[in-house]
Structures are given as structure tokens and as C-alpha cells.
């Protein structure tokens, strides 16, 4: 039971960290997007001004050089606008991918909460059984042992309940944040971690200790006796997101970018592989060779074709080959 509580501690911390990580990236991307949109808006305004100026110059018979200068400037601004639009599309794509990852994480978290609830139910059943045993127990020593077990079980159950409440609180906070972000992303409230449910570690302290760099796991392990994040915890991460180098620079998720040195490619002796060449005599059944041919006079041809002995046998042979069903 104690091990199970520890696993839940680790799991909830990993969720907190992942939530935090994803939210940070998402926020920065949204900020970038806003900045690019602002630039786009400014450039559009600039373009409009130039176009007005261009029309003005045209109507006031300005010099060709002046008009050409403005036309060139308009072209330059239009190119910049295209570039900005490209940036916006890319950022929007990144945001969609990050949001997808966040949603998957949220889903995985919901499954986790269900598991915690099931475990709580299991604890409650066991506690109920212990209570009944205490009621009917006559032996004082045994009763005392039951009561100790009851107290221990009750304490663990309380821990689990607090964890579930905490996780639900975070989920609700995130939902509110998501709704807020739809209206005004800059006004998002930070996640509150005040009501730490753990006896051994305080979540807010831990979050301060967590360094989102390569040495993250080492640092956390050094500061706590047990590892905060288990290597085998399977968090849902969008695979496309993992492949996105820009995003990975920020998330710093390790994945193999090159082949390990210890992979040995098979040594194949190509020279000794026999492949058929065109010179090889592959036997082809062409049938019988015509070794001689003699022309026949028209009169003899006519004689053969009208022969009452030859032609009936030819027709018979042909008719034997003709399948009436196929002909029909």
C-alpha cells in the first residue's frame, strides 16, 4: 500500500511538471503569435498609407522616379506581409500541436484520477472490514493490532483523497485557464499549488527545485531520496511535436537523432553475389526451328485447299478445338 502511495506521488508530480512545461511553451508561442499578428497589422497599415500616397502621386503628376520608388516600396511591404503570414501559419500550427499534447495529457490525467478513485474505494472497503473485525474481536492484543492497522489505513486513505482533490483542482484551474485563453490570453492566472497534499514533499517547493534543463532528473534526485519523476511513466506526448525541432529546443525531450555507434551494419561481400547476366543462356522454349521452306505454286495451293481428303480433317480438328459454350 505504501508503495502505491509513492507511485501516486510520483505520477501526480510528473503531471504537474508536464502541465507546467506545456503551458509555458504554449504561452510563449501564443505571445509570439500575438507579436507577429501585431506586426502584420502594422505592415498592413503601412501598406495602406503607401497605396494612398501612390494614388496621390499619380493624380498630382509627380515624377516617374517618385512613383516608381513608392511602387517598389509597396512591393517590398507586400513581400514582408507574405513572410509574416508564413510565420503566423507556422506558429498557429505549433500551437495546435502543443494544445493537442496538452489535451492528451489531460486525458491521461483523467484516467489517473479514475485509478486513484478506484484505489480509494478499495481502501474504504478494507477499512470497513477492519472496523467490523474490531467490533467483533474479543482478544485485546488482536484488537489493538487491528486499531493500529485501522489508523494507518485511514491516514493513507486521507492522503489519497487529498491527492485526488488536488488533481481535480488543477484540472479545473486548467479548464478555467483554457477558457480564459480564448478571451484574453494575457490575463491568464498562474496555477495555484498552495494546498500541497503530501506529507513528505511540498509541491510548490519541488516546482521551484525542478530545473527544466538536461540535468532536471539528476537535480531532483539529489534533493530528494526518492526519484520525483519515474523513467517508466508513460505520458502521452504528441509524436509530431517531438519531431518538431523548434519545439524540442524548448521542451528538451531526448530522442535519438543519430544512429548509435554500436550498430554494426552487416558486411556483405557484394562481389561474390551472383546475379544473372544477359550473357547467361537461359533456356527458352521457342519450339521447333524451321530448317527449310519451299514455295508452293498457286495451282497446288488451290489443290490442297479444295482437297476432299485433307480439308475435312482440318475442319474436324478445328471444330474439336472450338468449345461451343465459349463461342456462344
Amino acid at each position, binding site marked *: 500500500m505504501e508503495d502505491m502511495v509513492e507511485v501516486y506521488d510520483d505520477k501526480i508530480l510528473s503531471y504537474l511538471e508536464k502541465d507546467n512545461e506545456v503551458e509555458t511553451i504554449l504561452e510563449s508561442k501564443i505571445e509570439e503569435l500575438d507579436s507577429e499578428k501585431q506586426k502584420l497589422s502594422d505592415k498592413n497599415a503601412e501598406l495602406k498609407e503607401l497605396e494612398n500616397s501612390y494614388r496621390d502621386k499619380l493624380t498630382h503628376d509627380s515624377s516617374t522616379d517618385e512613383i516608381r520608388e513608392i511602387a517598389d516600396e509597396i512591393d517590398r511591404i507586400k513581400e514582408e506581409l507574405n513572410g509574416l503570414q508564413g510565420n503566423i501559419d507556422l506558429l498557429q500550427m505549433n500551437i495546435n500541436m502543443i494544445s493537442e499534447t496538452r489535451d492528451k495529457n489531460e486525458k491521461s490525467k483523467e484516467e489517473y484520477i479514475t485509478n486513484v478513485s478506484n484505489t480509494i474505494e478499495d481502501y474504504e472497503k478494507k477499512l470497513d472490514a477492519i472496523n467490523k473485525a474490531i467490533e467483533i474481536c474479543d482478544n485485546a492484543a488482536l484488537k489493538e493490532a487491528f486499531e493500529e492497522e485501522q489508523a494507518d489505513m485511514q491516514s493513507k486513505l486521507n492522503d489519497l483523497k487529498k491527492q485526488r482533490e488536488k488533481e481535480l483542482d488543477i484540472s479545473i484551474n486548467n479548464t478555467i485557464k483554457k477558457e480564459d485563453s480564448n478571451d484574453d490570453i494575457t490575463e491568464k492566472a498562474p496555477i495555484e499549488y498552495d494546498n500541497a497534499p503530501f506529507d513528505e514533499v511540498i509541491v510548490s517547493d519541488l516546482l521551484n527545485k525542478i530545473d527544466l534543463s538536461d540535468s532536471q532528473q539528476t537535480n531532483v534526485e539529489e534533493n530528494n531520496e526518492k526519484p520525483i519523476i519515474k523513467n517508466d511513466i508513460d505520458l502521452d506526448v504528441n509524436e509530431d511535436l517531438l519531431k518538431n525541432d523548434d519545439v524540442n529546443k524548448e521542451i528538451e525531450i531526448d530522442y535519438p537523432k543519430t544512429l548509435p555507434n554500436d550498430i554494426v551494419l552487416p558486411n556483405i561481400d557484394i562481389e561474390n553475389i551472383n546475379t544473372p547476366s544477359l550473357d547467361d543462356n537461359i533456356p527458352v522454349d521457342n519450339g521447333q526451328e524451321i530448317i527449310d*521452306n519451299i514455295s*508452293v505454286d498457286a495451282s497446288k495451293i488451290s489443290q490442297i*485447299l479444295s482437297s476432299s481428303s*485433307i480439308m475435312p480433317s482440318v*475442319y474436324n*480438328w478445328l471444330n474439336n*478445338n472450338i468449345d461451343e459454350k465459349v463461342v456462344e
Partner: protein
Amino acid sequence: MIINHQIITLQDNKKYFVLEELLEERERYCLIINIEDDSDVKITLRNENNGKLFLKEVDDKKLLNDLSLKFKTMLEKDQEMYS
């Protein structure tokens, strides 16, 4: 090389008269009859390899059926022409 209405000698030294020649699906077929044994009738595929001419007996039933039908029609027309 045109072998239609000619007497040909095959590798086994048997002599055949080529009754008809037909081009079908880019392949050339011949209807031949043994000049010494009129029960020996064949439909053959004509092959050319290294300037040499070969005849290979057709044994595919479906193809034999189709070709027999066509040769029969051709033969009837030829008979009309030579009669």
C-alpha cells in the same frame, strides 16, 4: 519471312504445309498440316530468334479455341478464293 502457303521442314524433319498465318495480339500464329499425315494438324506460335524462325505448338485451350475459330473463318474465305 512469309511462310504462308509454303511447305516447311521442322527440326524433326517432318514436313508441313502452312494453311494460314494470323496476326493476333502482336503475335503470329500458323495453322499447319503434316503433308504425309493429314491427321497431324497444329496451331503454332511463330517466334524469331537470332534470325532463325521457330514454331511452337499452342496448347492453351482458351487460346486454341479462339484461334481455331478465326482460322476456320479464314480458311473458308481462302477456299472460296481458290475455288
